[in-house]
C-alpha cells in the first residue's frame, strides 16, 4: 500500500503521514499522503517524466507547483468523469486517484509522435500558413485531419458529464483574492474594522507562499501566525473563508466570478452535492493578493524533466517533504533563488553548484556555499544534458567566456518574479514596467479593485503584510466600517537584488512557451516576418495561448522580442489579459441549467388533467401545451387531430387557451391608450364588446394581434399571442411610461390569473347552457357575436364569457380564476357528455385556423405589413398610432409584395409542405422567379385534402392561378392553386349563427 516514496523526506511538510493514499499514474500504482497534490506525490515517488509537449512531443516533467504549470498535464479520472489537461500541480491527491499522461502513443515512455522532432527544422512557428495549399481539396481530406489528430493534448470524456454543478450569489464589502501574507493581512484588517469579508484561496490550504517559504511574523513562525489569524477570522460572523476557490474574472459593477471546486478532492461528489459551484461575488471592494509567479530563464534544454522553478522546488521540499532531486543545482539571477539552496541544505539534499548571473553574490551566500562545499559560478546555464529520465549534466558558460559543467539531477531556476497582474487588467488596462524589479506591475485597476503585496510588486514579507493591512483598512473604511483594525503584523523585508536575464544563447532548442513548444528562435522568426506587435507575436507563434495562459512564458517572450526588435520591454508592451484567470469548466458556468432544467417550464391550469387523458404535449416557448389527445387504436397523430377537428365542426369541443397573454388595461385613458398602440380604434368599443386588434412596431411592420374586450368604461381586457405575451407587456409599459406618460392608464399582467378555454362547435350553446346559470341569456340577441361579459356559472362561480371564434364555428371563450381551471374542464366533460364534447389540442386549433384563413406566427414573421396579411383596411386614418408613418414607405406598399393567400395542390392526394417555394408554372426556378413560399399547412378534414397559407407575390390578385410548389430540399415539385385564404365558411355564417 505505502509503495516506495523514495524521494519522500523523512520529516517535515504539511502532509498527514498518518493518512497514506494510493493512486495510479499511467496504470502504475503509487502512493502518497493526505495533503499531497498529484505532482508532489509524483515527485515523492521519483517520477520525472509526466507529459509530452504539444508539437514536438518532447518529454516533459514538472516545472512549477501551482496553476501556472505548463507541462505536468494529465487526464484525471476515467470514463464519464475524465478531465483532460488537468494540472498535476493543483490536483489534490485522494484515495484511488487515477491519472494518465497525455498526447503520446502508445506510451509516455515510448511516444511514436516523437518523430515530429525530426521535422522540427520544418515545424517552426507558422509553418502551416506557408504550405498544405496544393492541391486544394487535400486540406480537408489529408492535411487537416492529421494536424488535428496530432494537436489537442488530452481527450474529453466523450459522454455526458454525470456530475451536478450549481451557482450562487455572494455579497460583501471586501473580497480578497489570495491568502498569502498580504491576503490574510488584508482580510484581517478589513474584518476587524467590521467589514463583511470574503477570502478566496485557490489552494486547499491557506497561506500562499508562506507554506513553501516559511518566515517569521510578529516573532512567530509563519505557520503559527497563519493559524492564529485564521482562528481570529473564523470567530467573526461576517467573514467567509473559501478555500479551493479561485477568483477568476472581474466584471462590471463590482461583480466578480469565482469558481469553487467543492468536491474535486474526492473520487465522486457525495449524494445531493455538486462537483463545482460558480460564485458571482458582488463586492464594494476587491483586494488582489494573488501574489507573483516566478519566471523561467530561456536556455537550451530548459524543458528537460528535472528543470524546475526554484520556488516550486522549495515548495516540494518544505510543504510536501518531497525531494525533486538528490543533487541540485541552482541557476538564478536574483537573491530569492538562493532560498531554494537553503531549503535543500536544510532538507539534507546535496547542492552541486549555484550558477548566478549576477556579478556580485552576497557574502552571506558565499559563506553558505563555503560551508555547503559547493561552487558559486558566475555565469549562466547554456545547455542541459539529459532526457526523459531527467537532468544529468548542466553546461555553464562563465562570465569571461570559460565553460564549466555541473553534475546534477535537478536544476532549480529563478529568473525573478512577475506579479500576477491578470485580474487587475481584466478591464483591458495595461500594467506598467518597473525597472527595479524588472517586472510589470498593475497600473491602476478596475473600479473598486486594488492590488496588494507581491501582486503589486512588493516582494518583501514585511511589505506584503503592510500593504495588505493598509488595503484592508482603506476598503473597510470606504464601505463605511469604522471599527479598529488593530496594528499591522510585522516582518523583515528580505533583500531582492536582481539582474535581468531572459535568454541564454546556446545550441539546441530553448523554450519560451513550453506547452506550445514556442522557442526563442520562433520569436526571432516572428520578428523577422513582421509579426512584431505582441498580439501578432502571440497569434503567429501561439505563445501564451496554452492552458497555462502564458503565466510563465509571456514576459520572457516579449523580452526576447524587445531584444531582437531593438525596443525596450515597456515599448514592446504586453498582450491583453482576459478572463478567466484560470480555466473554468463549462459545466460550472452552466450550473443546474442543463437537460430538462435548461429553462423553466410553464404549465397550463389543465395540464395535469390533460396528462391523465394521455395528451401529447408540445413545447411552445416555455409552455407545455396539449398538442392532441390520442385515443386507443388511433394509428397516428393525423388520425387523432382529424377526429378532433371533425368533432368540433359537427358537435362541440374545448381547448385550453390559457397560454395567451392577458393584460388588464385600467384607467380613464385606457381607450385613448389602446387607440395609440393598435392600428384600429378601441375607445369607440362599447362596454360588453370584444374586438380583434393589430399592433405594429414603430417601423410599420406587424408586431402582434389578439382580441381585446371592454369590461367597463375604464377597464379593458387585452389578449396577446402566446409567443409575444412578455414582449407585448414590455412594449405597452414602454408606451405607457416613456411615450405617453400624460395618459392615466395602468397595466397588469393577468395571464396567470385566468384559466381560459375555447368552446367551439354548433353545439357550443347547448353545452354552455349546462354549466352557465340559467338566468344568463346566451341567445344570439342576448349574447351576440363579439360580445364579452361576466356571467354566473351553476354552483355560483363567476366567470367571463367572450363570444369570439378562432375556429370559425359558433364559439365562446370562457375564463375562470386559474385554480378553478381543472374543475372547469372536468365539469365541461361531464356536462358535455350528451353532446359528445371533445377536448382538442393545438394541432386541431391550427387546422381550424388555417381552414378559416386566420393568420398566426408563420405569417406574422416580423417582415409582413397589415396589408400583406389582408388586414390593411383595419388601419385607421383618423388617428395616430405606433407604426403608422413608417408603414407608408414605398417598398412596404409596393404592388408586387408577397401577400397572404390560400394554397392547395391541384392533386387532392398530394401533401403540401411548409417551406416549399412558389414559382410560376413552366419556368425554371431561380432567384428571379422565386415568388414566395408556403407558410402554414394542414390536412383539412372539411376539404379532405392538404391546404395551406402562403406569402406569394401579388397573391390575392392571382386567385385561381396554377403555380408550382418547388421543394428541392425534399425533392418535391408539384402544381398548386392560389385560392381564397378562407377555405371554410367564407361568409362567416357559422360563427355568427
Amino acid at each position, binding site marked *: 500500500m505505502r509503495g516506495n516514496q523514495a524521494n519522500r523526506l523523512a520529516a517535515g511538510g504539511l502532509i498527514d503521514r498518518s493518512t497514506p493514499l494510493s493512486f495510479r499514474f499511467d496504470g502504475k500504482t503509487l502512493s502518497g499522503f493526505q495533503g499531497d497534490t498529484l505532482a508532489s506525490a509524483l515527485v515523492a515517488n521519483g517520477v520525472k517524466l509526466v507529459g509530452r509537449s504539444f508539437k514536438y512531443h518532447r518529454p516533459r516533467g514538472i516545472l512549477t507547483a501551482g496553476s501556472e504549470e505548463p507541462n505536468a498535464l494529465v487526464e484525471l479520472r476515467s470514463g464519464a468523469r475524465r478531465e483532460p489537461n488537468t494540472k498535476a500541480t493543483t490536483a489534490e491527491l485522494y484515495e484511488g486517484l487515477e491519472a494518465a499522461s497525455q498526447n503520446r502513443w502508445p506510451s509516455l515512455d515510448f511516444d511514436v509522435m516523437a518523430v515530429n522532432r525530426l521535422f522540427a527544422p520544418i515545424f517552426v512557428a507558422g509553418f502551416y500558413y506557408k504550405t498544405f495549399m496544393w492541391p486544394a481539396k487535400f486540406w480537408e481530406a489529408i492535411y487537416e485531419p492529421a494536424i488535428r489528430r496530432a494537436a489537442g493534448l488530452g481527450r474529453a470524456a466523450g459522454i455526458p458529464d454525470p456530475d451536478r454543478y*450549481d*451557482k*450562487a*450569489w*455572494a*455579497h460583501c464589502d471586501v473580497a480578497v483574492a489570495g491568502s498569502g501574507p498580504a491576503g490574510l493581512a488584508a482580510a484581517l484588517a478589513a474584518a476587524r474594522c467590521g467589514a*463583511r469579508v470574503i477570502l478566496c484561496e485557490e489552494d486547499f490550504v491557506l497561506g500562499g507562499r508562506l507554506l513553501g517559504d516559511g518566515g517569521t511574523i510578529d516573532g512567530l513562525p509563519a505557520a503559527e501566525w497563519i493559524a492564529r489569524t485564521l482562528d481570529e477570522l473564523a470567530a467573526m460572523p*461576517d467573514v467567509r473563508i473559501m478555500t479551493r476557490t479561485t477568483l477568476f474574472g472581474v466584471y462590471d459593477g463590482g461583480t466578480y466570478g469565482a469558481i469553487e471546486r467543492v468536491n474535486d478532492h474526492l473520487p465522486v461528489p457525495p*449524494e*445531493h*452535492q*455538486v462537483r463545482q459551484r460558480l460564485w*458571482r461575488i*458582488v463586492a464594494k471592494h476587491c483586494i488582489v493578493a494573488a501574489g507573483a509567479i516566478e519566471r523561467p530563464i530561456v536556455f537550451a534544454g530548459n524543458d528537460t524533466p528535472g528543470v524546475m522553478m526554484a520556488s516550486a522546488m522549495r515548495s516540494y521540499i518544505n510543504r510536501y517533504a518531497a525531494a525533486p532531486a538528490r543533487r541540485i543545482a541552482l541557476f538564478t539571477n536574483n537573491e530569492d533563488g538562493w532560498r531554494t539552496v537553503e531549503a535543500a541544505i536544510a532538507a539534507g539534499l546535496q547542492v552541486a553548484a549555484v550558477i548566478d548571473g549576477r556579478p556580485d553574490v552576497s557574502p552571506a551566500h558565499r559563506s553558505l556555499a563555503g560551508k555547503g562545499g559547493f561552487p558559486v559560478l558566475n555565469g549562466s546555464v547554456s545547455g542541459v544534458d539529459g532526457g526523459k529520465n531527467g537532468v544529468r549534466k548542466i553546461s555553464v558558460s562563465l562570465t569571461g567566456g570559460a565553460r564549466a559543467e555541473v553534475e546534477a539531477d535537478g536544476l532549480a531556476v529563478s529568473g525573478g518574479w512577475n506579479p500576477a497582474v491578470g485580474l487587475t487588467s481584466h478591464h483591458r488596462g495595461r500594467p506598467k514596467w518597473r525597472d527595479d524589479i524588472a517586472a510589470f506591475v498593475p497600473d491602476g485597476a478596475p473600479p473598486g479593485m486594488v492590488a496588494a503585496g507581491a501582486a503589486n510588486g512588493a516582494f518583501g514579507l514585511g511589505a506584503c503584510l503592510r500593504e495588505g493591512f493598509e488595503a484592508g483598512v482603506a476598503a473597510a473604511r470606504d464601505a463605511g466600517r469604522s471599527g479598529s483594525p488593530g496594528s499591522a503584523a510585522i516582518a523583515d523585508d528580505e533583500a531582492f537584488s536582481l539582474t535581468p536575464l531572459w535568454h541564454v544563447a546556446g545550441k539546441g532548442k530553448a523554450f519560451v512557451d513550453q506547452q506550445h513548444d514556442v522557442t526563442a528562435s520562433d520569436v526571432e522568426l516572428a520578428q523577422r516576418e513582421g509579426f512584431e506587435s505582441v498580439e501578432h507575436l502571440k497569434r503567429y507563434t501561439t505563445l501564451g495561448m496554452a492552458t497555462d495562459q502564458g503565466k510563465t512564458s509571456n514576459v520572457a517572450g516579449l523580452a526576447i522580442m524587445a531584444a531582437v526588435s531593438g525596443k525596450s520591454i515597456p515599448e514592446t508592451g504586453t498582450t491583453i489579459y482576459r478572463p478567466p484567470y484560470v480555466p473554468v469548466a463549462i459545466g460550472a458556468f452552466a450550473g*443546474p441549467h442543463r437537460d430538462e*432544467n435548461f*429553462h*423553466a*417550464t*410553464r*404549465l*397550463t*391550469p389543465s395540464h*395535469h388533467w390533460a396528462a391523465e387523458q394521455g395528451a401529447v404535449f408540445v413545447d411552445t416557448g416555455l*409552455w407545455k401545451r396539449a398538442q392532441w389527445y390520442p385515443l386507443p387504436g388511433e394509428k397516428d397523430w393525423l388520425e387523432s387531430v382529424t377526429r378532433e377537428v371533425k368533432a368540433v365542426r359537427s358537435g362541440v369541443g374545448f381547448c385550453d387557451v*390559457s397560454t395567451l397573454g392577458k393584460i*388588464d388595461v*385600467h*384607467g*380613464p385613458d385606457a381607450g385613448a391608450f389602446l387607440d395609440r398602440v393598435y392600428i384600429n380604434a378601441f375607445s369607440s368599443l362599447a362596454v360588453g364588446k370584444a374586438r380583434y386588434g393589430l399592433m405594429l412596431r414603430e417601423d410599420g411592420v406587424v408586431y402582434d394581434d389578439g382580441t381585446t374586450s371592454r369590461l367597463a368604461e*375604464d*377597464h379593458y381586457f387585452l389578449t396577446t399571442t402566446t409567443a409575444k405575451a412578455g414582449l407585448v407587456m414590455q412594449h405597452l409599459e414602454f408606451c405607457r411610461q416613456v411615450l405617453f406618460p400624460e*395618459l*392615466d392608464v*395602468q397595466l*397588469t399582467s*393577468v*395571464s*396567470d*390569473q*385566468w384559466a381560459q378555454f375555447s368552446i367551439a362547435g354548433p353545439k357550443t350553446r347547448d353545452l354552455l347552457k*349546462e*354549466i352557465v346559470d340559467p338566468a344568463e341569456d346566451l341567445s344570439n340577441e342576448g349574447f351576440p357575436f363579439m360580445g364579452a361579459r361576466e356571467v354566473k*356559472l*351553476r*354552483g*355560483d*362561480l363567476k366567470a367571463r364569457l367572450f363570444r369570439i371564434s378562432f375556429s370559425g364555428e359558433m364559439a365562446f371563450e370562457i375564463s375562470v*380564476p*386559474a*385554480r*378553478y*381551471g*381543472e*374543475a372547469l374542464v372536468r*365539469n365541461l366533460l*361531464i*356536462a358535455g357528455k350528451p353532446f359528445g364534447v371533445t377536448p382538442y389540442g393545438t394541432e386541431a386549433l391550427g387546422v381550424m385556423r388555417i381552414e378559416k384563413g386566420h393568420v398566426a406566427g408563420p405569417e406574422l414573421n416580423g417582415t409582413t405589413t397589415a396589408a400583406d396579411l389582408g388586414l390593411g383596411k383595419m388601419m385607421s386614418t383618423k388617428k395616430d398610432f405606433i407604426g403608422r408613418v413608417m408603414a407608408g414607405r414605398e417598398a412596404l406598399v409596393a404592388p408586387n409584395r408577397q401577400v397572404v393567400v390560400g394554397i392547395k395542390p391541384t392533386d387532392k392526394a398530394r401533401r403540401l409542405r411548409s417551406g416549399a417555394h412558389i414559382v410560376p408554372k413552366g419556368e425554371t426556378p431561380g432567384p428571379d422567379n422565386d415568388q414566395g413560399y408556403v407558410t402554414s399547412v394542414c390536412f383539412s378534414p372539411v376539404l379532405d385534402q392538404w391546404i395551406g397559407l402562403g406569402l406569394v407575390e401579388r397573391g390575392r390578385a392571382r386567385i385561381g392561378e396554377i403555380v408550382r410548389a418547388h421543394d428541392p430540399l425534399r425533392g418535391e415539385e408539384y402544381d398548386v392553386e392560389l385560392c381564397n385564404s378562407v377555405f371554410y365558411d367564407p361568409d362567416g355564417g357559422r360563427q355568427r349563427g
Partner: protein
Amino acid sequence: MADFSWYIRSPLERALVAGRYGAPGEAGVSLTEIRNFDLVQVMARRGKAAETVNAAKARFGVGAPETPEAVDTTDATLIWSGPDQFLVLSRGGGQRMETLARVFAGLASLSDQSHARALISVSGDKARTMLAKVSSIDLHPEMFPVGTAAATSIDHTSVTLWRGKNRQDGQAVFNLLVFATFAESLWHTMLDSAAEYGVTIAHSEELA
C-alpha cells in the same frame, strides 16, 4: 341539472410531497406552501399616489408601502410591488376585490391576483444559503431586515420576495409569491438547491 362542484387546485398541489427531501439528518431548509389566500394588486392612478396611501391608512391603519417593504396589518399584509403599486395579501375571503374596490374607488386600479400566484415560505438555518443559489438579492439581515420586500426574479421569472416575522425559534422567514404557471418549475429548482441541506416540505391551508 345539479350544480357543479367548483373545487380549487393549487398550482403546487401535485408537485408538493409533504415530508423529507434530500440529505438526511437535521433539515437545514423548510419549504411551506400556503394555499388559501386573497391577493389584490392596487395601482394608484395618475397623480393619486398620496390619496391611495391615505385610503390604505384609513382602511388598514397603516399607509401603503411606498418603498420596497411589506407591512403587516391586523387583517392583511401590504407588499410593495413597484412604483405606485402594492399587493394586498389576506386570508382566503379576507380582502376581496369587491371590498377593496370601495376602499380605492377613483384612486387606484385593482386587479385580482389571487389565482395568479403561489405562496411559498422558506425558513431554516440554511434558508439564506439556499436562497443565495436562486436569488441575486443580498439577504444579509443588515441589508434585508424583517419587513423588507423585493420585486425580483428567480430563474428569469418574476417573483415577489419579502422577509416576514421571524419564527418562534428566532429564525428568519422568507416569503415568495411566484407566478402560478411557473410554480412547479420553480418549486423543483428550489428543492434541487436545498437538497444538500435536507428539506422539510409542508403546506398549510391558511396564512399564518
